[in-house]
C-alpha cells in the first residue's frame, strides 16, 4: 500500500518535472522564434502592403467589438462609480474615476483580452491552417521564407493595431461615461471634464497605459504567430493551437499587467 502511494507520488513528481521542463523548453523556443520574426521584419517593411493587409485584419475588423465593448464598459463604470461616489458627495469625481480606470487598466487589459480572442485566434488559425494544408511548405519550396512573407507581417499588423485599439477603447469608454454621468444622471459637464483633466497625468497615466498596450500587443502577436507556426498540421492541432493562443495570451496579459503596474505606479504614493 505505502509503496503504491510512494510510486504514485514519484509519478506525480515526474510528471510535474517533465511538465516544467517542457514549459521552459517551449518558452526558449518561443523566444528564439520571436527573434527570428524580428530578424525577418525588414521584409515586412519592404512589402508594406502585406503588413497593411494584416493591419486591416487585426485592426479594422476588431474595431466594432472594441468600440462597442469600450462604450458599454464606460457606461457601466459610470453607473457603478456614481453609486459609490454619491455616498460621499464626491459624484463630481466620476470623470477622474472612470478616466483613470480606463486609461491605466481597463483600456489596455480589456482591449488586449478582446484582441487576443478576436485577432490573435484568427492569426493562429490562419497560420496553422496554412501549415496543415502545406501552404507554408509550398512557399518554402518556392524559395520564399514564410517567416518573412506570412509571419512577420501578421506580427507587425497585430503590434501596431493593439495600442490604437486600446486608445479607442478608453476613448469610447470615457464617452460612454460622459453619456451616463452627464447626460443621464446630470453631473455638471465642467466638473466631469475638469476633475478628469486635473487628475489624469499625461506621462504617468496616459503614456503608461499606451506602453502597457504596446507590451500586450507584442505579447499577443508573438503568441498568436508562434502557436500557429508550431501547431500540429491537423484539424485538432489547429483548433487546440487557437484555444491555446487565447488562454496563453489572456494569462500573459494579466501577469504582465501586474508586473508593469508594480513598476509604473510604484513610488507615486498611490
Amino acid at each position, binding site marked *: 500500500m505505502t509503496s503504491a502511494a510512494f510510486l504514485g507520488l514519484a509519478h506525480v513528481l515526474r510528471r510535474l518535472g517533465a511538465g516544467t521542463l517542457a514549459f521552459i523548453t517551449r518558452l526558449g523556443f518561443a523566444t528564439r522564434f520571436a527573434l527570428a520574426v524580428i530578424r525577418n521584419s525588414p521584409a515586412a517593411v519592404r512589402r508594406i502592403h502585406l503588413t497593411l493587409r494584416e493591419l486591416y485584419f487585426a485592426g479594422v475588423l476588431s474595431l466594432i467589438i472594441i468600440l462597442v465593448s469600450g462604450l458599454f464598459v464606460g457606461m457601466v463604470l459610470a453607473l457603478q462609480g456614481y453609486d459609490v461616489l454619491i455616498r460621499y458627495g464626491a459624484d463630481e469625481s466620476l470623470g477622474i474615476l472612470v478616466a483613470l480606470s480606463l486609461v491605466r487598466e481597463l483600456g489596455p487589459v480589456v482591449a488586449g483580452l478582446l484582441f487576443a480572442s478576436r485577432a490573435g485566434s484568427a492569426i493562429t488559425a*490562419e497560420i496553422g*491552417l*496554412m501549415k496543415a*494544408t*502545406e*501552404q507554408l*511548405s*509550398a*512557399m*518554402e*519550396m*518556392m*524559395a*520564399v*521564407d514564410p517567416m518573412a*512573407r506570412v509571419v512577420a507581417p501578421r506580427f507587425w499588423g497585430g503590434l501596431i493595431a493593439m495600442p490604437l485599439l486600446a486608445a479607442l477603447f478608453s476613448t469610447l469608454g470615457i464617452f460612454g461615461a460622459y453619456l451616463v454621468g452627464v447626460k443621464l444622471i446630470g453631473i455638471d459637464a465642467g466638473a466631469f471634464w475638469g476633475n478628469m483633466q486635473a487628475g489624469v497625468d499625461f506621462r504617468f497615466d496616459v503614456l503608461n497605459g499606451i506602453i502597457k498596450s504596446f507590451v500586450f500587443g507584442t505579447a499577443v502577436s508573438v503568441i498568436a504567430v508562434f502557436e500557429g507556426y508550431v501547431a500540429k498540421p491537423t484539424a485538432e492541432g489547429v483548433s487546440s493551437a487557437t484555444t491555446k493562443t487565447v488562454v496563453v495570451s489572456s494569462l500573459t496579459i494579466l501577469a504582465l499587467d501586474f508586473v508593469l503596474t508594480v513598476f509604473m505606479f510604484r513610488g507615486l504614493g498611490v
Partner: protein
Amino acid sequence: MPDTRLPVAPAASRCPDIAVELDNVTFGYDARTVLSGITMSIPRGKVVAIMGGSGSGKTTILRLIGGQLKPRSGRVIVAGQSVPDLDREALFEMRRGLGMLFQFGALFTDMTVFENIAFALREHTELPEEIIRDLVLMKLQAVGLRGTAPLKPAALSGGMARRVALARAIALDPMLVMYDEPFAGLDPISLGVVGQLIRRLNDALGITSVVVTHDVYESLKMVDYMYFVAEGRIVAQGTPAEIRASDEAYVRQFVDGEADGPVPFHDPAPAYADDLFAHD
C-alpha cells in the same frame, strides 16, 4: 558552420547530364525508417517516374531532393550541389530553379488563382504587371483553366485545383519540376491532357521532370525511365519498354494491379491475430 568540405561528388554527379542524384540515401521520421538505401539518378531533360505503393516514401524522396528534409546518411545532389550541405541562402537559390506540385495542391487559399500563379513571379522578379499578367494567363491557358483566374481556390474542384497547382509549379520556368501525384483526382480526359502537358513542357523547355505516381498506364505512355520503390528500396527500374517486358514480380504486381505479391498491401504491424486477441 565549421568548414566541413563535402566529400567530392562521384564522377557521375559532376557530369552536367545528371540533374538529380541520390546515392545510398537513408531516411526516417523519428524512429521509423522510411528509406533504407535509395540510389537513383535522374538525367537532365528526361521525364522520370517514381512509382510505389502508398506510404512507400515517394513524397519523402521529393522532399529530400527539395532540401526540406535531410537524409540520415547518403548523398542528395541536385545540379552538382549537395543539398543537405547548402546553407539557407544557397538552398533558396537552388529552389528558385525548382518547381513542385504538391500532392494536395497546397494552393494559397487567401489568394485568387491568378495571384497564386503570380506569386513566385512577384516574389522573385521585378517584372512589370502587364508581363506578369500575360505569363500567368499563358500558364493557365496551358492547363485549360484561364477562366478561373479570378476565383479563390475554394471555388475549384479537386481536379481543377490540381491543374492550377501544376500551372503554379511551372510559373518560373524551372529547370527541374517535381510532380507529386499529378494524375490523382483527374478525369480520364484531363489525365491524358496533363500527361501530355508534362511531356510537352519537358521537351519544349528542356526541363527535367520527376513524376511521382501510382498510375502505371499513364506513366508508361509518357516517361523516359521508371523507378519502383518498395520497403525503402528501389526494387526495379527501367525504360517503359523494359518495364513492359519485365517479369520481375514487383513490376508485374504493379502493372497488372494484383493485390498479392511482393509489395505488401498492409503496413508493417504485429500479426493480425495477435492484435485481435491482445486483450487476453
